[in-house]
């Protein structure tokens, strides 16, 4: 049986993520875990993240960080929100932190000088720049739910763009890694479709 593990390092809305996966799963088992053995035995991995990036990075223990770095290089992986931001090179948040550099790009504060509210909170359109299997059956320019104050403005791994005052990278992909700034587990039908695609994604 295919095993999907939602990595639990104490940060993130794990409950919603695993419930969304359970809702669309056919035979896959969904597990929330912080155990290195369980993570190693997974067929697919989900890296969630909510809150401040430094708290998230600090919450990943040295051991867990090593396992995550090793495992997400070879398994289909979905990274969400701060989970996505952690995979980039760096972030301005918390006076600057170094990321895991799995994806290219840096995270910056959303510019609130042009009459937009920060946090960027609510439903916004995701515009495709490239095709990707995880967006199968989801129309271009669909609304997804966002909630964040920092964003990645440019990356060579950029897959989609979204505008809040200015354009930013709303999802990225590289090899077996698919990373989103928005919350598919909070995006009703289109979000569940994305989780469904994730479960049938082969690399």
């Amino acid at each position, binding site marked *: 049986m295919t095993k999907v593990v939602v990595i639990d390092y104490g940060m993130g809305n794990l409950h919603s993520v695993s419930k969304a996966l359970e809702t669309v799963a056919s035979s896959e088992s969904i597990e929330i875990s912080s155990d290195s053995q369980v993570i190693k035995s997974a067929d697919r991995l989900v890296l969630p993240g909510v*809150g401040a990036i430094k708290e998230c990075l600090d919450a990943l223990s040295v051991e867990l960080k090593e396992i995550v770095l090793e495992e997400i290089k070879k398994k289909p992986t979905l990274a969400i929100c701060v989970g996505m931001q952690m995979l980039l090179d760096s972030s301005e948040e918390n006076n600057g932190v170094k990321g895991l550099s799995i994806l290219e790009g840096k995270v910056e504060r959303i510019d609130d000088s042009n009459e937009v509210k920060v*946090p960027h909170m609510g439903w916004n359109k995701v515009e495709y720049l490239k095709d990707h299997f995880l967006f199968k059956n989801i129309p271009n320019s669909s609304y997804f739910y966002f909630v964040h104050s920092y964003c990645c403005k440019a990356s060579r791994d950029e897959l989609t763009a979204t505008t809040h005052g200015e354009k930013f990278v709303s999802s990225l992909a590289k090899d077996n890694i698919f990373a989103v700034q928005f919350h598919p587990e909070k995006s009703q039908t289109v979000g569940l479709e994305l989780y469904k695609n994730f479960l049938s994604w082969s690399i």
Partner: protein
Amino acid sequence: MAVAKRIIPCLDVDKGRVVKGVNFLDIKDAGDPVEIAKRYDDEGADEICMLDITASHETRDTTYKTVESIASQVFMPLTVGGGVRKIEDIKLLLRSGADKVSINTSAVENPEFVKEAADKFGSQCIVVAVDAKLRESVEDSWEVVTYGGRKRTDIDVLEWTQKVKDFGAGEILLTSMDRDGTKEGFDIALVSAVSESINIPVIASGGVGNLDHLVDGIKIGGAEAVLAASIFHFSEYTIKQARDAMKKAGILVRD
């Protein structure tokens, strides 16, 4: 292109049941929170807000269970408020499946609590609920009230919202206690004064009686989101009708 304006139905929950009070007296049972949340989800609400109005603290477990059942079946953002006093309360609500937690009285009693909560969980999940009442003496000036409007605090609403924003609140849920339950529409002057003064999202609340009121809250008041309870509970209007009315008025809503 920009972020769509949000329609947020609110569930007042007492001991695990949705209730709707008229002037806090004639409390009507409006049903099971999970069923109602699912209906709003089907109708395409943008978020759901659940306020626990249970007076006693012994039923806290019921609250967590309700949050958990809603979050297991509804894949949309969920804000939970009512009786949030400690960091531990926030942690348990988030763990039960809430995305945002709303703090009211405890923020007024201890503003540092907002800072502590935002530092710990991030601004994106900390909503400060502000209950406002017009001052009798000064025109276009509001003060923060607590205990359902019974206790005046003499804190100026504009100063207060600025302060909690600086302390890390990610959103303001602004309720006019003068309008709450009246069905006369939002206090637009209040909504616009707060929306213009801070750059975090403001949810307008209190007084919605028809769909034009929702439109006014955004078009004139400048709110990012509108919250209503009774017009949706008893199926006076559906979320879809609200969305259509807003769209017709030229407001950007989700398709």
